[in-house]
């Protein structure tokens, strides 16, 4: 009987608590439709990501909205340049076979479009590291006059007036108001979920497969001569380095110096990941190398010295023809064919 009375009291207390909690909320707003949470999984043995979706919980609705936005030309001025025009899934979300990508009004981009994967581990985005947070990255291509050539406020307006988008925003964020913040967070949910961790290399690391003798030799050469910058498991240390590429006289791209204004950063560019290397050709910040072999030849005898050239490549990297042969066998094991076939990241059905 005593227990029973306590139970009634408990119920009353909880009811009151619930009432008080509700009293804090703004009144009059209709209940938000429920969302379906999605889980982000960190591959075994990988570091914790730098972006952990705190403040932007991943939901099926947000992810799907992000996907729709990613594949929709509405984000560009003339409707022809969705994110996906330069970031193609079959090229691991780089631009296939293009040194520079194409943007608005028959213009080239300044730099080679990088593949998009494992983005949440990046401390900064772009070849010069100018973007300090994954959520604000899309603002750069959307507003660049030679890329999507749009205006943020105008994109928000177009989405708000669209027959379908307000409903998708409602499903993802609780009401139909389109804001740049919501648009960017949805895009981040989609792009942030792109994890590429199922190459042959990964399978070997997980003990599911083993390297061939040639791949194993290549891996050992890689660890000895490449891994100090292309650090495993992400295959980049995210530093900025001048690898001795002479300045292109037309592009006049000084890289990191554009961001820091520091002459010590002249001609430095972010170390790119080598994952999916064979899908993302051409190579280099301006795509000047068409084949992996060209890049290896650059390091063995092409490096042009200069005041900011990295000490690790200043005297070139001694690579024999045999080394290059084996390295290419190893580098091919970094291709993740499941990632480029993953329907979650393909165009909306």
């Amino acid at each position: 009987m005593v227990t029973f009375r306590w139970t009634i009291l408990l119920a009353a207390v909880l009811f009151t608590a619930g009432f008080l909690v509700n009293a804090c909320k703004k009144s009059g707003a209709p209940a938000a439709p429920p969302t379906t949470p999605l889980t982000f999984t960190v591959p075994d043995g990988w570091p914790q990501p730098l972006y952990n979706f705190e403040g932007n919980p991943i939901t099926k609705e947000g992810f799907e909205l992000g996907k729709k936005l990613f594949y929709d030309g509405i984000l560009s001025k003339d409707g022809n340049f969705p994110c996906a025009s330069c970031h193609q899934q079959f090229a691991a979300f780089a631009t296939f076979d293009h040194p520079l990508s194409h943007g608005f009004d028959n213009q080239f981009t300044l730099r080679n479009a990088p593949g998009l994967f494992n983005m949440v581990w990046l401390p900064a985005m772009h070849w010069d590291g100018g973007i300090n947070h994954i959520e604000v990255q899309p603002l750069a291509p959307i507003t660049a006059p030679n890329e999507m050539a749009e205006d943020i406020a105008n994109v928000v307006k177009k989405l708000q007036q669209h027959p379908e988008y307000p409903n998708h925003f409602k499903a993802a964020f609780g009401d139909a108001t389109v804001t740049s913040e919501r648009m960017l967070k949805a895009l981040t949910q989609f792009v942030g979920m792109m994890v590429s961790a199922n190459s042959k290399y990964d399978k070997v690391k997980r003990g599911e497969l083993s390297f061939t003798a040639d791949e194993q030799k290549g891996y050992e050469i890689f660890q000895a001569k490449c891994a100090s910058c292309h650090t495993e498991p992400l295959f980049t240390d995210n530093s900025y380095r001048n690898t001795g590429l002479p300045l292109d006289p037309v592009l006049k791209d000084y890289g990191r110096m554009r961001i820091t204004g520091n002459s010590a950063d002249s001609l430095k560019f972010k170390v790119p990941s080598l994952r999916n290397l064979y899908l993302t050709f051409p190579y280099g910040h301006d795509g000047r190398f068409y084949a992996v072999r060209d890049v290896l030849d650059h390091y063995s005898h092409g490096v042009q010295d200069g005041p900011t050239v990295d000490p690790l490549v200043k005297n070139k990297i001694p690579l024999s023809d045999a080394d290059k042969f084996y390295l290419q066998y190893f580098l091919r094991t970094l291709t993740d064919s499941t990632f480029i076939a993953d329907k979650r990241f393909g165009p909306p059905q």
Partner: protein
Amino acid sequence: MNAMRNCFIGLALVVASLTSCQKEYKEPAPDHAFSVRFRPVVQETDNILEFGKTYTNFFNEPFEVRTFKFYVHDIKLINTENGYTFSVGKDEHFLVDAADTIGSRIDVKVPTATYNRISFKIGVDSVRNFSGAQTGALDPALGMFWTWNSGYIMAKLEGNSPVTGQPSDVFEYHIGGFKAPDNVVQQVSLPFPSPITLRKDAETEIIIAADVYRWFNGVHDIRLDTNPVVMSPGPLAKKVSENYANMFTVLHFISYL
């Protein structure tokens, strides 16, 4: 006993929910409507800036203004006599746009008390420059965000002058940068002409002149012929910010009953 423990958890919930309703303001309650209205002026505090009208700066360079905007945050009302300070909060950001009368007014709530000074920061708190997508005054759609080099444009002055040598004679000062040593966030502290005691049941507006003339000189010489364009963080942007940090003067108060 189990039920009893559950009940305590319930009581704790009630207490927690009550606490969560309370705002973290100091006493007394900030129930007084207080507005800060920035009056854009040129050289004299009664010479109100007109967009498109030609003025002359300290170096006799003619100029006209098309855009004049700046961020304000960390507003404090201070009484230096008794040491009392009311802080609106570091997180509240306001974008002041001289082009419209609503946009040049900041509305906050403060406690009724006597104050003799106002302080605020010009710019966007450094943390907010690397916090990802934001909304409200910090919405990048407002055109005050550098898309290629993440960070906010903390103050913007644009217009024309025949001496710039730029296409269409434009000058553009987009002042930003949140990293040392080129952090352009400037602390401003302004005394009132005389202390003001805010009245209960009244609304108070403080009128502060913001003088575009001071962008060009004062601490540093910024000439339109030699520096018509400032568009990235760095020592030059920092100099401009040190100039405009001195552009404010408290003019007077208006009380509405």
